[in-house]
């Protein structure tokens, strides 16, 4: 048996399995989206034409955008603090960010529900100390969705930022301030540009992963927070509406794919110039 043959035998089972049980089903989905009820793009016209569906697409983009922004705003100081803390604190912080990373999204969303719901811990506490009379609506709305999603996606922002910040030479910042720049100016003109690769990688990861989110918005969101993944589930589970669900799935697939390619190529251009 030649070496090439041996490799073929090693790889064949995995490729066959993924081909038959993954690639074929995705192609099947693509076919249903353009062939029913008749061949054509009518399902895509519905997705981009009807106000209900456009609303969901908008929800998806705006929730993903807000999650990305919040992750950046929270992740930046966190990563900075990690880099500049004593080693044992840094180890602890990495552990603190990694534990939830390994915990199921279902468990974490459930935990938020326990804390935030009307009879939940925060409302009980606030009513108990007499700060509010009526329970606050902390969940089943946009606030709940963002709180849950940011907690889950924060590691994807923190770790790229951390690895970039750890390599930044602190003397650049000192040089800028010694030359007369105030700390704010030195931060925006010197430090922030140096962290850009990490920030951009983190933002891309968080945004693209957010687009397909299902469990957190379904558990912590309200009627106005339906994202595209929830709509796909609803169309199949409640209505058996495969043509439209397939079209939505393909829109999500192509959307995330295009975004990935576009952002990647922008990076390569930037990297080439500098």
């Amino acid at each position, binding site marked *: 048996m030649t*070496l090439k043959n041996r*490799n073929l035998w*090693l*790889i064949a*089972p*995995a*490729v066959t*399995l*993924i*081909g038959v*049980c*993954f*690639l*074929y*089903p*995705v192609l*099947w*989905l693509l076919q249903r989206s353009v062939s029913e009820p008749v061949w054509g793009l009518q399902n895509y016209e519905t997705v981009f034409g009807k106000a209900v569906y456009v609303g969901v697409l908008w929800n998806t983009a705006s929730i993903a955008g807000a999650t990305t922004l919040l992750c950046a705003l929270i992740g930046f100081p*966190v990563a900075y*603090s990690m880099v*500049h*803390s004593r080693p044992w604190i840094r180890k602890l*912080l*990495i552990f*603190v*960010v*990694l*534990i*939830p990373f390994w*915990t*199921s*999204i*279902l*468990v*974490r969303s*459930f*935990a938020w*529900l*326990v*804390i935030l719901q009307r009879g*939940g*811990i925060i409302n009980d506490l606030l009513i108990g100390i007499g700060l509010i009379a009526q329970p606050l609506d902390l969940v089943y709305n946009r606030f709940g969705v963002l709180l849950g999603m940011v*907690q889950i996606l*924060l590691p994807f922002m923190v*770790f790229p930022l951390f690895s970039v910040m750890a390599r930044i030479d602190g003397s650049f910042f000192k040089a800028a301030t010694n030359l007369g720049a105030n*700390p704010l100016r030195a931060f925006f003109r010197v430090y922030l540009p140096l962290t850009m690769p990490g920030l951009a990688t983190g933002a891309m990861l968080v945004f693209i992963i957010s687009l*397909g989110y*299902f*469990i957190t918005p379904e*558990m912590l969101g309200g009627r106005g927070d339906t994202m595209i*993944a929830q709509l*796909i*589930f609803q169309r*199949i589970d409640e209505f058996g509406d*495969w043509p439209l669900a*397939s079209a939505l*799935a393909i829109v*999500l*697939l192509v959307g*995330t794919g295009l975004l990935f390619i576009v952002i990647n190529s922008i990076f390569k251009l930037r990297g080439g110039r500098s």
Partner: protein
Amino acid sequence: MFYSAKFWGGLRGVINALLVVYMLAPLVIVLVISFSSALFLTFPPPGLSLQWYDKMFSNPTWSRSLITTLKIMVPAAAIATILGTAAALALSRMQSKWALFIRGVLMAPLIIPVIITAAAIFGVFRIWGLYGNLQGLILAHVILTLPYVLSTVSANLVMFDKRLEDAAANCGAPPWTTFRRITLPLISPSVLSGMLFAMVISFDELVVSLFLSTPRVRPVTVQMWSNIKGDTDPTIAAIATVLFLFSLIALLADGVARRKSGRAAGL
């Protein structure tokens, strides 16, 4: 003020503390509530008891779903580990452009949104009679977990010195012996990591299982999902704690394996 080291040190402390609270408080609260003696999800609990764990194991719905989860996880993780390791070995030896393409295809289930995988698999598996039974769920979980094994083992193989295999072959060892005596012992920590990864992903998996399971064959995450949508009692907190502890133990086991093999901790 901005120039004083004390100010920045204090600010870092505040940021660190807020991070710990935000990331861990929800989990800790669920953990504590699962030992509550109260009938509702109150915090802090009025007293401690193991009643919800008792209920979890004695209630046939929960115990059956836990067993279903194990019946899916064990074969799925085993198959994914074998196929993923084999694929990683083959890809590390392939030079052609095809290797990159094949790697991309095998990693795809990890990269594309899981809802798409779930809808696609459900649509086709229903036609093939793989809906509502263990075979379908196992197969789906293999597809979802294989990329984790592939990437973990591949990362290790980058550092693997292929001359060791050549040396064994030159000394007359047949391929299988070389693999068993040289290659496998050297890459086994990463194979173990990959398998642990696969087990955690399978144990926690919800979205694909939601499509493929029926009330008769229902893993614990799907059972939990349908109960959260109804009325909740601390049994769910106990289930959540079991799920959480499973991940934690796997993470620690992985840490031990990595320390022994001298690889960096983390992702």
